[in-house]
């Protein structure tokens, strides 16, 4: 039945991957001019549903209707021709091509195959303005962009086309507040123009702000659709996870121990200038800041992943600066870094979950002379799969087949198994569902409670305020301020994050060539 | 190393085939020794290609030598047709060209009305002599196999023909002719398969000694060293002992060191007198255990 305004209807949809039933008998509908949020735990099937609608995967069962007509896109291009677009969860840009070329990849303006560069540039400029990246040179290779900027470019890519259905699969996972605001403005504009938007996110407060209706997926089944105004946050969580989450215990008060890591005058090529901070045992230090403010660069330098120009790193209160020239040095001295780009820098995608978990501490499950004890290894992996509730059908499943959030948990498990004293988490909850997020918060708390020094970088300010003992705020490569628990407010932190941008010319990625490309 | 380059003295370029082959190395050494003894008469530029199938590189060498303004080119062509064009160009540019070792194709030379004097051995005749010597040790009707050079190597073809001539004349049965690409390893594989397939084989005729070494190894592995005779060609140093031990029956010596020297002397004469002497066939000697003992 085609009711007025019902743009897209999905009924009894089913899809399985081997033994995994990713979608089971799912019904879903989208009206023109609404923002329909899709939520659910990691691996619930949100991306799978979106991919089917966008023509990237074929369903096993069920039917789709688009504007009252049967709809079966042969591939993505076909779907886009009909007006269904999707911004995918994982970045799919081509790093060696320029921003402009990526924006228009499947329809580069050309005359007999010859690219019209002036037009390409002009049109890209317009698109970039719309997503707030007006300062970027469209001819810059994408390899020189940070994750957040890439995400915005991905979004820009879908914006210019005739768009009746737009699916955003976790668009804000790598964005900080200002960009999120910008994105919301864009979404409002599209909604006004009658586009139906499917919005997938694990940040529930966002959903409360912009969504009209909400559907919850659990284990591949739809548990129901309702108006967002009718449900409270707690209720959404209950629908997703099937139980209540206890948000009271997010932060346990503990007494911080001696200084574990002290960084003095850290400067590295380009984007980190004179950063000093310290973190104590049993303390969680948060790093806030705008996108590109240098948080990642700072911590990578501490970890020895990038060379540092100046600065000293002292461990465990020692007066002698530690020698950290490579990640190996860092790990040996008890520092761990969970990278922000799990796909490129964290996972061994084709290898088993087991191999991914034990990678950093393989020797712990091996004989002295190098034989891996397979039973032990599998046992360890199974343990962690259980402890972190990683959703996979066995620890032998390749990491590539896991949902994004579960992949993240695999990387977390690797470092928890390695058991370092100083743990640096760069965007640990990126793309992780609330249930798992709370699980990770609990873990961070527990780690701090066990006397570890924990550093958390996050673009989600609420999250930092919920779990940290102190928050350091970076702004344009400098450390703008550090707040202790109780001293901070959201406004104070945002003001600090913007401080350098107001006083000095911001570092713009377009005039500065990159330090070694990271993706 | 770099050559002394006194202007006035003629410069002679020696262009050889595969320097990977001991034969041409001997040739080069002979030439260098000769130059040292006659250092006041000429300068020598010796070059060769990596492997004898790389004809293009040899053509380029000739062009290079013309560009270097040498007075004469003494060349052992890797291909009896493909080098004619460039040698003609060299002649037209006023460079004396002498053909050694591997004779240019007569038909093409005649068709193009080019005259290139030749100094070198007759591979077919040499192979025939080796084959004849082998035939004396066999009975008519015995099975033999030929291991040839690469399919279009001219001297390889000539040696194959020479072996065929001898075997056919003596009434032997050639059960297989396959290429061993001048290489020990490849010849070894081929020989091993042939032995298995023809357990009553009596002899291998190999178009060079490296391949003979491969055949001997195959026979040793099959435990048939004393049932199957092997002959080779080139008389490289490595087969001396084998000849004495009788594991290789015979080989042919083309006096590589002499060939280039003859070519160079020939070129010098041409430069001086401007008249071409007649083609000159260099000797090919049959080498056997007896001839070695006789030395």
């Amino acid at each position, binding site marked *: 039945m085609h009711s007025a305004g019902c743009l897209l209807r999905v009924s009894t949809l089913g899809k399985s991957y081997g033994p995994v039933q990713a979608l089971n008998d799912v019904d879903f509908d989208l009206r023109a001019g609404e923002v329909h949020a899709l939520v659910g735990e990691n691996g619930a099937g949100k991306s799978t549903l979106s991919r089917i609608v966008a023509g990237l995967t074929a369903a096993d069962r069920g039917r789709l209707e688009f504007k009252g007509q049967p709809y079966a896109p042969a591939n993505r291009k076909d779907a886009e021709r009909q007006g269904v677009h999707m911004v995918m969860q994982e970045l799919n840009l081509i790093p*060696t091509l320029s921003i402009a070329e990526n924006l228009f990849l499947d329809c580069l303006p050309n005359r007999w195959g*010859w690219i019209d560069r002036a037009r390409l540039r002009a049109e890209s400029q317009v698109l970039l303005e719309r997503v707030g990246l007006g300062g970027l040179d469209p001819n810059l290779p994408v390899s020189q962009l940070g994750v957040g900027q890439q995400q915005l470019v991905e979004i820009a890519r879908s914006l210019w086309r005739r768009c009746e259905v737009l699916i955003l699969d976790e668009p804000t996972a790598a964005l900080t507040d200002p960009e999120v605001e910008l994105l919301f403005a864009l979404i409002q504009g599209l909604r006004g123009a009658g586009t139906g938007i499917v919005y997938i996110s694990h940040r529930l407060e966002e959903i409360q702000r912009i969504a009209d209706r909400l559907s919850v997926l659990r284990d591949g089944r739809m548990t129901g659709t309702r108006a967002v105004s009718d449900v409270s946050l707690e209720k959404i969580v209950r629908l997703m996870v099937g139980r209540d989450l206890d948000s009271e215990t997010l932060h346990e008060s503990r007494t911080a121990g001696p200084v574990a890591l002290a960084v003095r005058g850290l400067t590295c090529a380009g984007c980190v200038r004179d950063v000093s901070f310290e973190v104590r045992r049993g303390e969680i230090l948060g790093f806030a800041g705008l996108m590109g403010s240098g948080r990642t660069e700072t911590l990578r330098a501490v970890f020895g992943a990038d060379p540092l120009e100046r600065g000293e790193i002292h461990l465990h209160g020692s007066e002698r600066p530690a020698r950290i020239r490579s990640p190996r040095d860092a790990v040996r001295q008890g520092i761990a870094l969970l990278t922000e780009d799990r796909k490129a820098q964290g996972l061994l995608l084709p290898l088993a979950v087991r191999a991914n978990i034990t990678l950093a501490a393989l020797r712990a499950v091996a004989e002295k002379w190098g034989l891996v004890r397979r039973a032990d290894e599998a046992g360890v992996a199974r343990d962690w799969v259980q402890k972190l509730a990683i959703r996979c059908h066995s620890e032998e499943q390749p990491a590539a087949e896991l949902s994004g959030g579960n992949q993240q948990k695999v990387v977390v498990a690797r470092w928890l198994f390695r058991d370092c004293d100083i743990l640096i988490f760069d965007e640990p909850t990126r793309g992780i569902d609330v249930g798992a997020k709370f699980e990770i918060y609990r873990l961070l708390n527990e780690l701090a409670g066990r006397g570890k020094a924990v550093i958390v970088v996050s673009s989600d300010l609420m999250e930092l305020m919920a779990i940290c003992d102190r928050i350091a705020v970076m702004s344009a490569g400098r450390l703008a301020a550090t707040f202790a628990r109780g001293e901070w407010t959201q406004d104070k932190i945002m003001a600090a994050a913007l401080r350098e941008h107001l006083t000095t010319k911001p570092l713009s990625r377009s005039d500065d*060539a990159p330090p070694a490309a990271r993706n | 190393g770099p050559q002394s380059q006194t202007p006035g003295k003629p410069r002679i370029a020696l262009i050889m085939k595969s320097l990977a082959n001991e034969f041409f190395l001997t040739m080069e050494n002979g030439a260098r020794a000769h130059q040292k003894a006659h250092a006041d008469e000429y300068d020598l*530029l010796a070059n060769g290609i990596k492997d004898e199938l790389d004809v293009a590189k040899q053509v380029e060498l000739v062009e290079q030598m013309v560009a270097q303004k040498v007075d004469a080119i003494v060349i052992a062509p890797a291909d009896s*047709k*493909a080098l004619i064009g460039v040698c003609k160009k060299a002649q037209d540019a006023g460079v004396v060209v002498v053909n050694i070792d591997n004779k240019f194709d007569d038909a093409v030379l005649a068709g193009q009305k080019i005259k290139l004097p030749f100094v070198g051995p007759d591979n077919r005749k040499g192979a025939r002599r080796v084959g004849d010597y082998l035939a004396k040790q066999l009975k008519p009707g015995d099975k033999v196999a030929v291991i040839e050079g690469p399919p279009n190597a001219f001297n390889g073809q000539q040696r194959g023909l020479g072996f065929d001539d001898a075997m056919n004349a003596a009434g032997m049965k050639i059960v297989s002719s396959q290429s061993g690409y001048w290489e020990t390893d490849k010849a070894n594989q081929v020989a091993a398969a042939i032995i298995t397939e023809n357990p009553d084989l009596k002899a291998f005729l190999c178009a060079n000694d490296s391949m003979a070494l491969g055949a001997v190894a195959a026979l040793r592995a099959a435990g048939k060293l004393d049932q199957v005779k092997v002959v080779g060609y080139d008389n490289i140093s490595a087969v001396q002992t084998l000849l004495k031990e009788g594991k290789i029956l015979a080989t042919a010596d083309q006096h590589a060191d002499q060939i280039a020297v003859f070519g160079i002397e020939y070129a010098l004469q041409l430069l001086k007198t401007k008249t071409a002497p007649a083609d000159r066939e260099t000797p090919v000697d049959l080498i056997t255990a007896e001839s070695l003992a006789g030395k």
Partner: protein
Amino acid sequence: MQNRSRWHAGLTEYLGLAAALALLVLVFSLSTRNFFTTTNFTTIANQIPALLLVATGMTFVLVLGQIDLSVGSVLGLCGSVLGVAITQWKWPAGLAMLAALGAGVFCGAFNGAVSIRWRLPTFIVTLGVLEMARGAAHAVTRSQTQYLGSAIDWVAGTNVLGLSLPFLVALAIVAASQFALTRTVFGRYVVAVGTNEEAVRLSGIDPRPVKLAVFMLTGLLVALAGVIDTARFQSANPNAGLGLELQAIAAAVIGGTSLMGGRGSVVATFFGVLIIAVLNSGLAAIGARDETKRLVTGAVIIGAVILDQYRHRLERGRST
């Protein structure tokens, strides 16, 4: 400013390679009598067209993230077809050349189609074709070099200012290829597929025609190289092009083309070809012993790439 920096970038991009080349020329000019002469340079120029064309095709293949080991054999096959068509089948020269080019395109299409159809690594498919094309070349010629006489002399014989037609054609093709790679939709797709084929597929672009086209283009360029070599030597040799694949890849890689795909420049490959050609020529002019030549060649290949690395670092160092 925008424009100046682009020029600047273009220049520094080839700085390392140019330096390596200049160094070689300098060394050889000092150590031989007639190296630094017009004659010698035109001789070198007229020798490189075949390698240049093959290396250009190889650059496309490498940028695509693939490899083509069959180029040498295919060159031999195309030359053989041309030779046999003229000498045995008595075809007119034009038709014979078309047949040769057709053979090249066919081999390229085979490489592309087989690896696409069964999703095989091109390394193994082209390795198979390496053997097969060589076999076909020998079968077609019955392993005999075909002497053409002056049948297609005009191809290699036409001269402009001492530069042969093939060289000029090759130069034009290099220029066109560089433009095609950087300025056309096709070229950008080649780069994109070489960088991340899956992402390209997800963008709604079918990478298969791009792949097929690149292999066919390479086949065509290789065939052209075969025709040129046959004309230069006035004869078609079934063994022509032996080991050419490694030389072509070496030229491209010396020029900074990545074997992982997504990165490469035809102009840089041109420099790579020049370095190889100058090296060969110079060593021949010196008359070095074979083992010395090999040692030096190996060292120069590695040295050129190291030099280029330092150029990269310098550049990066300056810009940050």
